[in-house]
């Protein structure tokens, strides 16, 4: 029974390709009825209990396939709603409009948008649709150091830091901050956080049915985003200590981190990499940072912003200060992150 027949066939726990998003949302709602409510018609995950009067509403959204992002982060102390697009496809303005109206508690709504052309354009249109009626602010996350932020790209992608923005801005909103203040917090987190990721395998977009890219047995794709898109370069598979270095170095230099700085270290799995490996990767990251005298004050390890079943990991570092630590530690109760409550 030793293996002989390798394969990259699509094998997923699904009924039909078109049912993936609605059924996954239905499952999320059925598993966490105390936390979320599903607006199936709009493919929007809403915080159970409806909008909180006087609280700034936080919404995010994007293509599906990144679970638990964003629907798994709806709940107390984080998002008020998440719009689910098709797999790797930005949701449409109608969804965002519906979500914005649903979460408005009179204090305005913050749109947290990952920097991809599709997400940005659709959220922009949604903001226009509710303009004048509901005060909307938008914060675009763009933390991926693998992409040059230049005239020659669509700008850095929004990746891991988005999770941290949702948590920390969510805590600020829960504490009663104004729309301007919540937006400022989100901008600060985005500004102080950077990420980079790599893939050991591709993933299969269900509607496509085949892997998005092909990797040799000994190759890794470095500088990937979260949509299965190929990365910036290809390298030979290496010990994880080295691979962690490929990711941590550009982040540390981009953030200008130096001895004595305090960070939150977030080692994120791409969906198909199990925890045993993610903790090994975290160990590598901790060794590298420790060697440079950078203090890990908070950490997060797990599959939080994924690319379907892709194997691989990303590292996000967020420069901390007392304010951010306090907001990070504040209670959160969502399907995917929970503490203090």
């Amino acid at each position, binding site marked *: 029974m030793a293996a002989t027949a390798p394969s990259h066939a699509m094998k997923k726990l699904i009924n039909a390709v078109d049912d993936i998003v609605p059924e996954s949302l239905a499952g999320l709602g059925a598993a966490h009825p105390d936390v979320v409510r599903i607006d199936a018609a709009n493919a929007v995950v809403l915080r159970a209990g409806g909008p909180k009067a006087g609280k700034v509403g936080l919404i995010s959204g994007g*293509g599906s396939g990144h679970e638990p992002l964003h629907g798994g982060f709806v709940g107390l102390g984080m998002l008020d709603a998440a719009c689910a697009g098709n797999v790797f496809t*930005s949701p*449409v303005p109608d969804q965002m409009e519906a979500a914005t109206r649903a979460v408005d508690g009179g204090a305005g709504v913050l749109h947290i948008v990952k920097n991809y052309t599709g997400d940005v354009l659709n959220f922009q249109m949604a903001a226009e649709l509710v303009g004048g009626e509901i005060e909307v602010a938008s914060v675009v996350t763009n933390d991926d150091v693998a992409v040059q932020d230049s005239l020659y790209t669509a700008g850095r992608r929004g990746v891991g830091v988005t999770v941290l923005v949702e948590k920390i801005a969510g805590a600020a909103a829960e504490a009663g901050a104004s729309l301007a203040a919540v937006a400022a917090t989100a901008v600060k987190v985005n500004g102080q956080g950077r990420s980079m990721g790599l893939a050991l395998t591709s993933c299969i*977009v269900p509607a496509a049915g085949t892997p998005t890219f092909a990797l040799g047995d000994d190759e890794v794709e470095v500088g990937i985003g979260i*949509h299965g*898109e190929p990365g910036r370069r290809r390298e030979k598979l290496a010990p994880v200590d080295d691979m962690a270095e490929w990711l941590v170095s550009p982040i540390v230099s981009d953030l200008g981190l130096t001895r004595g700085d305090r960070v939150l270290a977030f080692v994120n799995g791409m969906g198909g990499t199990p925890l045993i490996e993610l903790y090994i990767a975290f160990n590598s990251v901790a060794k590298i940072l420790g060697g440079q005298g950078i203090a890990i004050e908070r950490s997060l390890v797990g599959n939080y912003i994924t690319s379907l079943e892709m194997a691989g990991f990303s590292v996000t570092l967020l420069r901390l200060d007392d304010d951010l630590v306090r907001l990070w530690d504040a209670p959160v109760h969502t399907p995917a992150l929970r503490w203090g409550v």
Partner: protein
Amino acid sequence: MLEILDTWLRTAAERIHAEAPHLTELDQAIGDGDHGTNMDRGFRAIVATLDGRPAPDPTVTDQAATAELLRLVGRTLISTVGGASGPLYGTAFLRASAAVAGLAEPATGAAAIGAALEAAATGVGALGKSTTGEKTMLDALVPAATAARSAIDSGANAATVAGAARDAAQAGAEATIPLVATKGRASYLGERSIGHQDPGATSAALLLAALADVVA
């Protein structure tokens, strides 16, 4: 005009459906592998809209009804496609609608195609903050609009104008192959985007090929 638009949209929907795997394959190479699925979803929605539409109001001119349908198509694409191409193609149709509505009545088919294409290309560039040479749908739309205008200026009829637009779009789409993408998802690849045809430019060329066939 309205009838041709209806026929074109249905023909385009069939072509898009047939070519969806190819569009997706192109998007797998330099994007995220969903362009075919996205466009197919949008055009299926358009056909559903066409099927569900009440009979044209006899008090409305053909040109106004055409403009109104173009607007409906734009809204449908925005509401169903998602991704980058949804707002971009949606805006293209919204702008085309305004352009057709703005022409002195009764406009010729050639004039309508020319005005619609120019407005569409301008609208996409404005929303996408993009221009030609960036390896996007604009590399098909802009040459198509230019070729249509030249044909019109030399007195061509609708069929010839549509044919010129089709040829220019096709050439423009193929010419994206050696380009480095600097907009959209493909731009993340930098130099690695060279050697692949842009999916959005390809779908644009496909739509214009359908138009030329329908108008012919």
